[in-house]
């Protein structure tokens, strides 16, 4: 039967053993894409959704109308956050391999997305992150100890042991609880933003979804409700090209950019180089100002590459060319910002080494602190009684009885 088939199947550029081929990635030269006024009507800037906003050129210079003109100190903070995110990821990956946590997901190569976007927003803006946005936690200053405690499900875990590793939250820092179910938070962020508008507050909501997850119904719900009510929300699609083993073409990326869905719903759509810290910052700032001043929602597609395995349960060598990430045409976000800072005389190899050492030490000392709250096998442990709490605000009779039954079972 397969001989006769006329079913189109998206083209996957390189499987294991094949030569990486990123010619499908449509690029615009740095500085080439115009920057419309923030209150421009969506229909009057359609090309933003298929072009690629870039600020850093190949020489490490920041060019063009999207150049955000950040202070060097801010750029250094951005670099620090990205580096810390990466070192934290590396260490947690090794710790998972050593069997000390059950699961982990790195954001290797995508650090600029969370860090630049997080920095472009206000602390009172509400974040609805995905599982690969640890950079947002770093930007918002969540202590590594707290993140690690969550990974350990220990007595300091903000989730009280209920969630899989990486599903952090922080009420105090306006970071919503991450769900293991893909895409569900995308329309919730829109609801949050609708409430902000109803209350007449000018906070903005921001949410992140993988390009693979954009296939879910909730992506549509999010775009639709945001468009209908012109909600003050920033809707981000992190297009890191892969959804576990599935190439972005299977989420619709073969036919057109993900950013182009925005104009389809009558909202602004922008495609941006996700590995360009300055471009990501500028675009996010633009979208936030647009949302805050009543211009409505923006859909941002961040074009990046998943440098590592999907998770510690995954082996990408089974489905993509081994050296893929090295050929990724948009480079590494940390190296690119570092090169820019050096270029403008605000950074050096030596300072970078020193920062690296400082942050590695921070990660190491944090881990020590975290394990003192207990590990999967040693030290203090959460009381199993607590597993019956928070199903409801008050524990109903049947859960009280089950709690008692478990106590008996374990005695």
């Amino acid at each position, binding site marked *: 039967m397969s001989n006769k088939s006329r079913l189109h199947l998206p083209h996957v550029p390189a499987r294991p053993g094949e030569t990486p081929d990123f010619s499908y990635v449509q690029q615009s030269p740095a500085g080439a894409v115009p920057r419309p006024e923030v209150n421009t009507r969506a229909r009057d800037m359609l090309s933003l959704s298929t072009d690629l906003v870039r600020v850093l050129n190949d020489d490490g210079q920041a060019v063009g109308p999207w150049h955000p003109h950040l202070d060097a100190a801010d750029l250094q903070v951005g670099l620090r956050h990205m580096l810390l995110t990466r070192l934290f990821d590396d260490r947690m990956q090794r710790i998972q391999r050593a069997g000390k946590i059950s699961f982990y997901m790195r954001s290797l190569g995508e650090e600029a997305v969370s860090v630049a976007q997080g920095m472009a927003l206000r602390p009172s803006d509400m974040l609805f992150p995905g599982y690969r946005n640890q950079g947002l936690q770093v930007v918002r200053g969540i202590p590594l100890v707290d993140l690690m405690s969550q990974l350990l499900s220990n007595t300091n875990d903000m989730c009280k042991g209920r969630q899989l590793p990486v599903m952090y939250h922080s009420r105090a820092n306006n970071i919503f609880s991450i769900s293991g179910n893909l895409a569900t938070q995308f329309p919730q962020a829109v609801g949050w933003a609708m409430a902000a508008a109803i209350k007449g507050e000018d906070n903005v909501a921001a949410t992140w979804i993988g390009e693979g997850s954009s296939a879910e119904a909730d992506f549509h719900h999010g775009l*639709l409700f945001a468009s209908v009510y012109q909600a003050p929300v920033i809707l981000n699609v992190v297009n890191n090209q892969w959804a576990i083993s599935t190439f972005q073409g299977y989420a619709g990326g073969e036919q057109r950019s993900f950013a182009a869905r925005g104009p389809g719903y009558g909202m602004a759509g922008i495609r941006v180089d996700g590995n360009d810290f300055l471009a990501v910052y500028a675009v996010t700032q633009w979208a936030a100002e647009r949302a805050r001043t009543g211009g409505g929602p923006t859909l941002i597609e961040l074009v990046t590459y998943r440098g590592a395995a999907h998770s510690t349960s995954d082996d990408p060598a089974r489905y993509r060319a081994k050296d893929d990430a090295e050929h990724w045409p948009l480079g590494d976000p940390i190296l690119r910002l570092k090169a820019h800072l050096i270029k403008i005389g605000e950074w050096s190899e030596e300072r970078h080494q020193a920062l690296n050492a400082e942050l590695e030490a921070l990660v190491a000392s944090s881990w020590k602190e975290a394990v003192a709250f207990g590990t999967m096998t040693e030290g203090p442990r959460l009381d199993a009684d607590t597993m019956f709490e928070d*199903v*409801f605000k008050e524990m109903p009779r049947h859960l009280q009885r089950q709690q008692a039954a478990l106590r008996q079972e374990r005695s």
Partner: protein
Amino acid sequence: MASMNMIQALNSAMDIMLGKDPSVVLMGEDVGYFGGVFRATEGLQRKYGEHRVIDTPIAEGGIVAAAIGMSVNGLRPVAEIQFADYIYPGFDQIVSELARIRYRSAGDFFAPVTIRTPCGGGIRGGQTHSQSPEGIFTHVSGIKVVMPSNPFDAKGLLITCIEDDDPVVFFEPKRLYNGPFDGDPNKPAVPWSAHAKGQVDEGYYKVPLGKADVVRAGAAVSIITYGTMVHVAAAAAAAMNVDAEIIDLRSLVPLDVDTICTSVKKTGRCVVAHEATRFSGFGAEILSIVQEECFWDLEAPIARVTGWDTPYPHAFEWEYFPGQARVQAALKSVMEPA
């Protein structure tokens, strides 16, 4: 006290809560300008504004998701799903999100959303306007499930649900909107004005969750039921002249096990009745609890009265509906076990 049908009582509950608490908002398909296809929100947009009583796109999943986000930002959304048959596109948001947010965030976030939805048959709605899916939701940890059987309870329960910090699915047996219904479609319709529970306090009051109502005390048999079947069961027992104790659960989660078991321990006989399909319906859970807790008191097998395990067919609405004959057969089996 005023005479109200169930729609008016629900409208009154929402009116009061909109007036009392600025964080309450209503949302749903056709609920705003039009006032809802069953008119439950009539007049409320005019009174409280387009930003408090919000028309939405036809996307149940989006409605629930937006309501969750709004609730996390301090509002108390009351979302209408136009028919319970159409709650399924919102199922993932209800089960995986609404029911889980408090638990997975260890109480740091919670989502006080009330979902109102008309359920049940008897209005010639066919298979897609007649379903009673409450049983499914009772299996989902973290969601409260409520179904009133009369205007007085409907209003008091709805106010309680809106003020509750946990999410609730609030089922409204649409056959009861205009009057109590004893299961006989050929009898002239009875309005709520002729029924004691159609006399409703016009002000603010609450009916608690997790507290069943003993509609009729009796010694011979306990009938555990809720929604439309409360009235059908009462009529069936009266017609048979059985001294039945009739318990209207009102809230299925949390469940008032004490009232149920006290009754069965007293009567030694039990019939469980609901309109929903039988297999794995909520009746099975009630029966199980009674069996587990009252086994030694039972003098006959507990019997279930339910809809059949088919969709609700348009042409056979009354053959499908568990009317008095089906209740009576069950009562008979329990009173005179073979």
